[in-house]
């Protein structure tokens, strides 16, 4: 069996989520008994950086060409599909990031492959990848049975990161042969306005999220402070976003992002099914709400009954003094 992984390059390093995918695929290959693993990185990155981050079996190809300086989805998809086909890959894996989601259908179509989105992987009895995914906004779990010879998978965020399988770095190789010629790029990424001082909620280990019960835009300062003390980020429920208290990018739930942090603190969030759908992958859930009957408590591991104004600052200072003692 041959596995193929897209490693996402950002600012001359590899993104953590795609290294998670690499490590998960290494474990899958070990469970499957035998598998060849190939990886691909597109863009300007040092071989040394790649070998300092990717461990385990297999080879990672680096595609460097000025054709890749700006992101053109069809150019990237074509290069990845051609290289995957060349390695004889039957299973192609990507992280379920904006870019992974953008490339996966294009790669699947070019390979005549099935596409399994946002899944988690395990090896089945015969060593084949068994992909489990959730449907209906996280309320139903199902196994995706692939009916084609080749399959492309995007892997969703997991609360438990996959550990490195071994301490031996991979072999890094050049793959200039797969760099495309300049031709009809459509569309083309024109500009990226990077977020500053704001981390992506779907990549954070700790999220402090606020809902209508926070009471207003200004009260989010309390959540910001708690998140800072914990080394986490602030998220929001749909109500808080609809009120205009927080940006759309911070929305967690069915019409926002699905998150899988190790710790999720829900502040003033009632716990509508649409919100719970977005946090089913969370490790520990703490709920703070003044209504003891709020549905959020039945989806939480720990509950504190009280208003945001009284509970959050106390928790904040408790965290800070706890960390001083540690």
């Amino acid at each position, binding site marked *: 069996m041959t596995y193929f992984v897209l490693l996402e390059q950002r600012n001359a390093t590899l993104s953590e989520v795609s290294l998670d995918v690499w490590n998960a695929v290494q474990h899958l290959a070990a469970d499957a008994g035998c598998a060849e693993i190939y990886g691909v990185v597109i863009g300007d990155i040092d071989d040394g950086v790649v070998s300092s981050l990717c461990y385990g079996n297999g080879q990672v190809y680096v595609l460097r060409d000025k054709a890749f300086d700006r992101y053109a989805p069809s150019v990237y998809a074509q290069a990845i599909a051609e290289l995957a086909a060349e390695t004889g890959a039957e299973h192609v894996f990507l992280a379920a990031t904006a870019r992974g*989601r953008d490339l996966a259908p294009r790669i699947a179509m070019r390979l005549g492959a099935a596409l399994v989105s946002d899944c988690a992987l395990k090896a089945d009895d015969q060593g084949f990848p068994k992909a489990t995914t959730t449907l*209906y906004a996280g*309320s139903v779990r199902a196994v995706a049975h692939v009916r084609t010879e080749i399959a492309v998978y995007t892997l969703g965020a997991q609360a438990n990161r996959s550990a490195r399988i071994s301490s031996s770095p991979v072999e890094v190789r050049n793959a200039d042969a797969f760099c495309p010629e300049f031709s009809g790029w459509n569309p083309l990424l024109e500009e990226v306005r990077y977020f500053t001082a704001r981390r992506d909620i779907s990549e954070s280990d700790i999220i402090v999220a606020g809902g209508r019960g926070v009471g207003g835009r200004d009260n989010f300062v309390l959540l910001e402070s708690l998140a800072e003390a914990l080394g986490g980020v602030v998220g929001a429920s749909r109500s808080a976003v609809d009120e205009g208290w927080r940006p759309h990018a911070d929305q967690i739930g069915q019409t926002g992002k699905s998150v899988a942090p190790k*710790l999720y603190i829900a502040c003033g969030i009632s716990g509508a099914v649409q919100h719970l759908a977005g946090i089913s992958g969370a490790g520990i859930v703490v709920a703070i709400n003044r209504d003891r009957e709020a549905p959020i408590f039945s989806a939480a591991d720990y509950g504190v009954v009280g208003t945001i104004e009284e509970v959050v600052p106390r928790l904040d200072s*408790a965290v800070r003094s706890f960390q001083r003692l540690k």
Partner: protein
Amino acid sequence: MEIAVCINRVPDTASKIEVKDGAVDVSGINMVLNAYDEYAIEECVRMKELMPGVTVTAFSLGDKEHYDILRKALAMGVDKACLVEGGNDDDSFVVAASLSRAIREYYPVLPDLVLCGRESSDFNRAQVPLMVAEMLGIAAISAATSLEIQGGSVTVTRETEVGIEEYILQTPAIISAEKGLNVPRKIGIKAVMKARKEPVVHLDGHTGEQPRIAYREFLPVNRKRNCSFIDVVEDLLPALHEKGVV
């Protein structure tokens, strides 16, 4: 200018999805127009209102039950509605093939723009728009939060993990709509009544393509956790520390 908008019928997000005998029980579920598709429709109708000579046509794959969402699209201001018959509507690949066939059949040349919702809120795969783009051989960008058309090109922005990306696409192109693209209009009773009288064109969506994935072993996700209520907030810390999260 021709604009196509592809729409889908999904369970109301407030519906409780039950699993019965290993399959999803859809009886007793209220089916509605997919929320992301409302953003797509709204955007088309706004373009129509801003520019002369724009015709917007809605396409939906399914049976006559889809008349309700097609009529809602008409009531929102879409010009024409097409029901695409045939094809398995559970498999993204088959759906994309049927929609592509219908679009090719309906238009003598490809429409300038095809809009879709980012994803359907039932299977949440977000695959169909990009698959249709590959099948039609045209440019595509998913999850747009703003869209501006000028001559033969479209400027689209979207939010990713790292920032806001801006793309320029040459038409024909497919754009999928993200929440935040616009605020869909409310429709009045007069528009609803008028839409009821509009004809719906039937198109053949059979392609002979087979599903590439079969979803099996359905299980309800149990979100219930045992909540320990903490009376003194400060007691949370040792508990969280024990779990290894702080």
